[in-house]
């Protein structure tokens, strides 16, 4: 099935995460009341469907922070890193406005502007709220959002509601101060540096109070948690329950990033990062409680563009400084954004209707494809598959995939699980060589990243990687090129079942 193209304004979907694979995802927000769904449907960070079409940007106007987290190094500044808290160019509110207007004119898919750091936005209230104030005047169609550690949230909850900021993300790693004392060495509170359990107690209290105040004011709240094995892994289910009870609409559990080279406490002290299996298990445990986000890419605080791509280098500070506000025709840009947005909505609506029709014609349920409808008995074991996808189709060459989307096929249906990043295995002759000048090193890393998967779906794959995958018990499959991802995953699952492969446990099959 080809993606429908509507007029000339159809988005050039692409960029880093170009999977439409999260296509099952609209249902993930189905439990939300209509007015909240309407608010999040264009938001790339909240809607898995939207993140393939709509772009976001962060402006780094908030350098100061009022707490220390053990996974953060305030000295860090590296343009090659893509992770929270890392940012290259600090902007004044005036520069930020220019940058946003320039980006929103150049990328009409832009719907969301966030302030996420590199410190805590609410520890920089003047710079943060000045940016929001000017933006809501000049680009009223852009949604505003802010991320915070929550310490100053109760103080600014009213101001947040006043600025029409409808999305707030609070990072809540614990509700138990004893757990918190292992994550936060200190906070700055009421003119003092406070340490240990006392610091964590105050932080937890302010976060919970802030969450209540925001939901009481109709502000959407998402909660981020960093999964830190051995520190808060067992605790996060309780956190998930509590924040849901207080009205958070999404819970995003992210893996700890702790590399020694980043110079963080956890990195230097060799605190283990969670495995993908640990992360998934926890996300599954929490999913029973509320909508979970699985497509989060842990963006930099100055990220620009679609999730998974970063167009930041096109909009550097020297380019912004050379720009006069008069150079940007924001009236025209506003109209263009509306056209593009309407076209995307039309496309999404049409896509949904087409899928429902196709499935109804096939005699199945109108929504997500369920394997049970296709003769796979309940109790059959599930299978993880990695997909090199583009725009919702199996359309990427194995060696060109920068990341794989991971799907789980089970009798209950096909479910998007998450992403795994790879080093580019084949970047053409100029870059081929990978680590140590050996392409095999990059291939080894890709194979390691796909651990646990039994199948890789891609449009094409070379002879050498094919063999390598097979020796690791991963079955490469290029037979479903250009088919919709979920249909392809289901077809392969049915094939495995028909061939009796699902009667064997995964390990035996992989060893066979």
């Amino acid at each position, binding site marked *: 099935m080809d993606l429908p193209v509507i007029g000339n304004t159809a988005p050039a979907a692409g960029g880093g995460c170009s999977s439409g694979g999260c296509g099952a995802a609209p249902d993930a927000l189905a439990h939300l009341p209509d007015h909240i769904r309407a608010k999040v449907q264009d938001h790339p960070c909240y809607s898995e469907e939207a993140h393939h079409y709509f772009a976001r940007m962060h402006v780094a106007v908030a350098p*100061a922070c*009022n707490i220390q987290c053990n996974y953060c190094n*305030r*000295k860090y500044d590296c343009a090659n890193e893509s992770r929270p808290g890392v940012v290259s160019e600090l902007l004044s509110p005036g520069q930020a406005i220019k940058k946003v207007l320039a980006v929103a004119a150049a990328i009409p898919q832009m719907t969301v502007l966030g302030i996420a750091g590199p410190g805590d936005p609410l520890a920089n209230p003047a710079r943060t709220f000045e940016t929001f104030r000017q933006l809501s005047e000049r680009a009223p169609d852009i949604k505003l959002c802010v991320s915070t550690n929550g310490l100053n949230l109760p103080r600014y909850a009213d101001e947040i509601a006043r600025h029409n900021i409808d999305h707030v993300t609070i990072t809540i790693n614990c509700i138990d101060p004893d757990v918190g004392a292992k994550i936060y*060495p200190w906070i*700055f509170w009421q*003119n003092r540096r406070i340490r240990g359990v006392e610091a964590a107690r105050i932080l937890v209290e302010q976060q919970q109070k802030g969450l209540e105040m925001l939901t009481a004011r109709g502000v959407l709240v998402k909660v981020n948690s960093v999964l830190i094995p051995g520190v808060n892994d067992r605790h996060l289910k309780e956190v998930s329950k509590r924040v849901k009870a207080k009205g958070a609409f999404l819970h995003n559990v992210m893996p700890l990033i702790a590399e020694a080279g980043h110079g963080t406490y956890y990195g*230097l*002290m060799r605190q283990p990062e969670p495995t993908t299996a640990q992360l998934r298990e926890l996300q599954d445990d929490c999913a029973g409680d509320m909508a979970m986000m699985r497509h989060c890419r842990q963006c930099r605080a100055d990220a620009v563009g679609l999730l998974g791509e970063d167009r930041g280098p096109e909009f550097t500070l020297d380019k912004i400084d050379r720009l006069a506000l008069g150079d940007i025709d924001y009236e025209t840009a506003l109209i263009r954004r509306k056209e593009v947005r309407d076209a995307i909505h039309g496309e999404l609506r049409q896509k949904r209707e087409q899928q429902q029709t196709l499935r109804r014609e096939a005699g199945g349920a109108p929504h997500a494809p369920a394997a049970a409808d296709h003769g796979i008995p309940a109790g059959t074991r599930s299978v993880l598959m990695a997909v090199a996808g583009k725009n919702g189709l199996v359309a990427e060459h194995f060696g060109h995939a920068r990341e794989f989307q991971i799907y789980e096929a089970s009798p209950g249906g096909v479910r998007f699980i998450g992403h795994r990043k790879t080093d580019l295995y084949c970047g053409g002759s100029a870059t081929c060589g990978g680590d140590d000048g050996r392409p095999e090193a990059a291939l080894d890393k890709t194979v390691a990243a796909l651990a646990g998967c039994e199948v890789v779906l891609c449009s094409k794959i070379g002879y050498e990687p094919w063999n390598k995958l097979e020796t690791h018990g991963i079955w490469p499959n290029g037979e479903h090129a250009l088919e919709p991802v979920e249909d392809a995953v289901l077809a392969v699952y049915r094939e495995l079942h028909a061939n009796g492969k699902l009667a064997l446990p995964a390990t035996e099959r992989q060893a066979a």
Partner: protein
Amino acid sequence: MALQITQACVNCWACAGVCPNGAIAREIPHFLVDDQKCTECLGDYAEAQCAAICPIECAIVDEAGDPLNPPGSLTGIPASPV
């Protein structure tokens, strides 16, 4: 008497926002304390505010050059990590 900012400073602005005397200004390559205005917060607060919020060890020193936040005091990272 006045505190000083050293080259360990990462220009995060935190101190400038909490100084009760407006004694801290952004300079290149890093923020500096105006020693005419700095009172080390005596009479205002129990702790010098810049040193109480600064996230970087050894970035704020007293007149003797001694750091108010010595190595390991903020991050807990020992001098030679495991």
